[in-house]
């Protein structure tokens, strides 16, 4: 019991040091710009089809599911506004971040862990390359900047899904739908939701890199690292979301 608590605190200390090292390295010159662009492409662009499809289904299903309750209240015309607010404020960022954690977090974890256990990282260090700067920094930076873009695209696609959902049972023209959506939206809905996705992206890639970079026990460790990366990244998303809600309510 005491041993497991000790391990937990040591892990937290390691993670904190890892984060500190990231911030130390990210502003230091000799930037790995090419690697950063490549990671942006792999992390951002390659995740787009998956996240677009999820977003579309999210909007469609949420609209169809909310409809009966609103019809009971005779508030059917509120459907677009209600779905838009819930997608943009909460469901879009969180669901996208979870999918992103499943795809990118595990990918980073497995990739770095296999490099670690096959001693490729040690080889880089020996040959004089700063492995942290080359492997970790571009991945975290790319994920931090790409997740907000993916969330915005998922929001837009989800709203289109919602438009189709509205037109399955009812009849709402596209201009009217857009009008009703933007009538209820304010900057207070968009900006906190976008800002928190930076933190989601950062924590997902950070945990993925941390678990991969510190993998042990050979091939077994690769699977463990990938698994742990997804689990803790998803947990991190929810914890950050809870903090973000409290902070948003302050203002």
């Amino acid at each position, binding site marked *: 019991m005491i041993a497991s608590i000790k391990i937990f605190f040591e892990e937290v200390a390691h993670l904190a040091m890892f984060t500190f090292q990231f911030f130390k390295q990210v502003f230091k010159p000799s930037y790995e710009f090419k690697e950063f662009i490549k990671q942006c*492409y792999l992390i*951002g662009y390659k995740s787009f089809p998956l996240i677009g499809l999820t977003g579309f289904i999210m909007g469609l299903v949420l609209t169809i599911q909310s409809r009966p309750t609103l019809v009971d209240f005779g508030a059917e015309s509120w459907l677009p506004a209600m779905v838009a607010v819930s997608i943009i404020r909460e469901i879009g960022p969180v669901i996208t971040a979870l999918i992103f954690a499943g795809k990118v977090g595990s990918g980073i974890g497995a990739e770095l862990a296999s490099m670690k256990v096959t001693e490729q990282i040690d080889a880089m260090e020996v040959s004089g390359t700063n492995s942290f700067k080359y492997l970790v920094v571009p991945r975290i930076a790319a994920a931090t900047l790409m997740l907000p*873009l993916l969330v915005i695209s998922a929001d837009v696609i989800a709203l289109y899904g919602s438009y189709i959902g509205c037109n399955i049972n009812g009849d709402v023209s596209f201009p009217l739908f857009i009008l009703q959506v933007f009538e209820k*939206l304010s*900057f207070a809905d*968009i900006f906190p939701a976008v800002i928190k996705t930076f933190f989601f992206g950062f924590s997902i890639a950070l945990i993925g890199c941390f678990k991969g970079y510190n993998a042990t026990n050979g091939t077994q460790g690769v699977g463990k690292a990938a698994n742990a990366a997804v689990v803790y990244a998803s947990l991190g998303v929810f914890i950050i979301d809870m903090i973000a809600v409290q902070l948003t309510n302050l203002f």
Partner: protein
Amino acid sequence: MEKSSAYKLKLGIFVTVIIAVLIVGIYFIGDRKQLFNNTFRVSGIFKDINGLQVGNNVRFSGINVGIIEDIEQISDSTVQVSMLIDEDSRKFMKKNAKAIIGSDGLMGSKILIITAGKVGEKSLENNDFIETRQPINMDEIFAKLKITGDNAASITGDLAAIMENIRSGKGTIGKLFMDTTFAENLDKTLINIKQGSKGFKKNMDAASQNVFLKGFMNKKDEKKEKK
């Protein structure tokens, strides 16, 4: 190198499109908030704003032309409400336009309604104060309704007393309705009048045949024929 520029192109298009979408979305919301539009500011002083909030719509001729920008209590019984209104509708709002707080439907949020002033007056200027009318408060309506109800109750009470008197045959109208001897008397009186008037007619007929009055009667007949 060829492959590297291909993914750079894809990434560039991806990032540009999404940022463009974000900017369009922000513009749409800002447009509704009228941040990027030409606006002018008008204030009004109210005693009671009935739960009006910052951000509520300002309506003029049924069109949403602006929003409530700020609500400030300036003394114990006065609240200053300032609103931002679209510059385009300024020319229709005259100096003597009035602002009233109403609500959007029975359950809807509060709105501020501006009624057009008289034709010929000058238009409102920026930072002008607008005349206000007290909003109709539901509690006031109920208070007035209670007074009306009380009055109605006392009126019906009086009416009941009057009806009671009538039924028991008191007073003139009561006698008219309820007293049978009164009716008989009236009947007798009418018979007497009838007989009296019959006698009077005989007298008059006799008079017209009278020698002394014959000349006068003939003259009257001649006048009728002339006409």
